[in-house]
């Protein structure tokens, strides 16, 4: 019997919601597939009770990163650790950092790495992984006849739980990634203040309908009142009205919030490709023919400069 490795994401020691769900999925998967235990890898220190509500975890391994994670040499110590642990399968929720580590593991261990997995099943001679493709417009189920694989989950993954036994006391370990002289960090520009777009539960998007960057105050005020992140269409970031990391769509960030409020955006198919995953969509546009209305749950035909201030007032009066 072999083990499962799960890479988790956390901020200030708090395991992210999607990583918690992944640990739940992993415990159930373990039981259903007769695997032995779970090694959890993360990038922050964790208190011993972080894993109280999850079963079958053998150890938490805190990976420290002294520099950048950008070549074989840097990741090699992790590979050594993993080789000793008899790990068959690796799960993580898609992130840039773990993508780069996972690609290294896939390449070094010659195992498949399947991205954007939303569902996982064991079949007689292998595994079936269903992945989201075309930015969520379709899914593809793919079969691999290899016992060992890496699954990079899309945040929207689903699974069936199996009831779990009690918790085990888990041990902790630390491993440090290597450094090299070739890659140097010059400066970090963390996203400050605002809520990061990919994680936001509510997103307010604004398009060319706002005419001028000086008109974004109402968008920001509304977003602030709602605890929402702000997004924009591609032309808006191309014109440098808004920063590029706010651009959503086919060629930008893909979002899947519970609520997306699109204001002054026409709803081009390339824009929709990045927001289709939203649970509910509100569209505010002064053109009743705007294509976005066909993809909206709630639509208001109106001028954003009239409607948004009124929505904000109403929110504030509650």
């Amino acid at each position, binding site marked *: 019997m072999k083990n499962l490795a799960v890479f988790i994401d956390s901020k200030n020691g708090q395991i992210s919601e999607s990583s918690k769900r992944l640990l739940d999925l992993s415990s159930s998967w373990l039981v259903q597939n007769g695997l032995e235990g779970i090694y959890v890898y993360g990038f922050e220190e964790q208190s011993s009770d972080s894993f109280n509500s999850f079963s079958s975890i053998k150890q938490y391994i805190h990976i420290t990163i002294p520099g950048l994670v950008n070549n074989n040499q840097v990741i090699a110590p992790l590979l050594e650790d993993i080789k000793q642990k008899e790990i068959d399968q690796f799960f993580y929720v898609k992130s840039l950092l773990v993508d780069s580590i996972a690609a*290294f593991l896939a390449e070094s261990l010659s195992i498949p790495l399947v991205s954007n997995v939303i569902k996982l099943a064991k079949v007689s001679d292998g595994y*079936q992984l269903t992945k989201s493709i075309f930015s969520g417009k379709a899914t593809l189920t793919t079969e691999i006849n290899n016992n060992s694989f890496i699954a990079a989950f899309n945040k929207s993954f689903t699974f069936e739980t199996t009831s779990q036994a009690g918790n085990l006391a888990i041990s902790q370990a630390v491993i440090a990634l290597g450094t090299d002289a070739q890659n140097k960090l010059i400066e970090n520009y963390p996203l400050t203040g605002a809520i990061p777009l990919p994680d936001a539960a509510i997103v307010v998007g604004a398009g060319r309908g706002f005419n001028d960057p000086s008109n974004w105050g109402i968008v920001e005020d509304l977003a602030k009142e709602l605890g929402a992140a702000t997004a924009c269409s591609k032309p808006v970031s191309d014109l440098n009205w808004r920063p590029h990391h706010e651009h959503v769509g086919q*060629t930008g960030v*893909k979002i899947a919030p519970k*609520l997306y409020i699109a204001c002054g955006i026409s709803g081009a198919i390339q824009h929709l490709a990045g927001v289709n995953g939203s649970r509910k969509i509100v569209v505010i546009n002064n053109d009743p023919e705007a294509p976005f209305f066909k993809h909206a749950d709630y639509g208001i035909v109106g001028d954003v400069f009239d409607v948004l201030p009124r929505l904000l007032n109403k929110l504030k009066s509650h």
Partner: protein
Amino acid sequence: MKILVCISVVPDTTSKITLDSTNTRINSEGITFIVGPYDDYALSRAIEIKEQTQAELVVLHVGSSDSDALIRKCLALGADRAVRIDTAALDSYQVAQEIIHYAKDQSFDLIMMGKESIDYNSGIVHALVAHGLSYNHFSPVMHLELDANKLILEIETDSGKSKVSTTLPAILGCQEPIAEWKIPSMRGIMTARTKEIAVISPIHSNFEQHIAAHVVETERLQKMISAEDAESLIDILKSENLI
């Protein structure tokens, strides 16, 4: 300097996705194919670097001869020659193995491609190739400046942006605003006709067998609220626990 740009060929972003009769593949009938938009950014920046440094610029594609017209377009934009590995692209691992196999003794200084293809959105081919070739790797790269033997890059990270420096050889996954998409000139189109597209046999190494595809239809309510009554939206959103 020798630069390789890897391009994916994908359905035009306005395509309506339908399935073929086997229900395992996207129906390609009636669909216009384009060079992956992110790959196009990578190619555009590579062309600028070529113009600046007289580098040799090679374009690589894993796919069938159906893609030759699009490869020709890359040549018209300014690539010197092209290589096509003659097999359908099936999964990231396979595509990466084909690229590694081709590039391993070609001593490219810089390999560029889009951060992801817009069909499968996996975004890991560049990372797989980087590890296979032991190159430095960064993605998504939003700015790239050449500084002697060093690259100064602006990259997106999970928590924001970073400016980093790296050395060649390196492989980069690119996204806007690394460069503006380019349009081929008449002269480019003429000279592209005589440029070489070398066809290479594949090594075949796919893991995944595609067994079923589904088109996802999200049903939207399409309820209209009159502008005079806009405030009622807030009550609706509250009652649905959306805010």
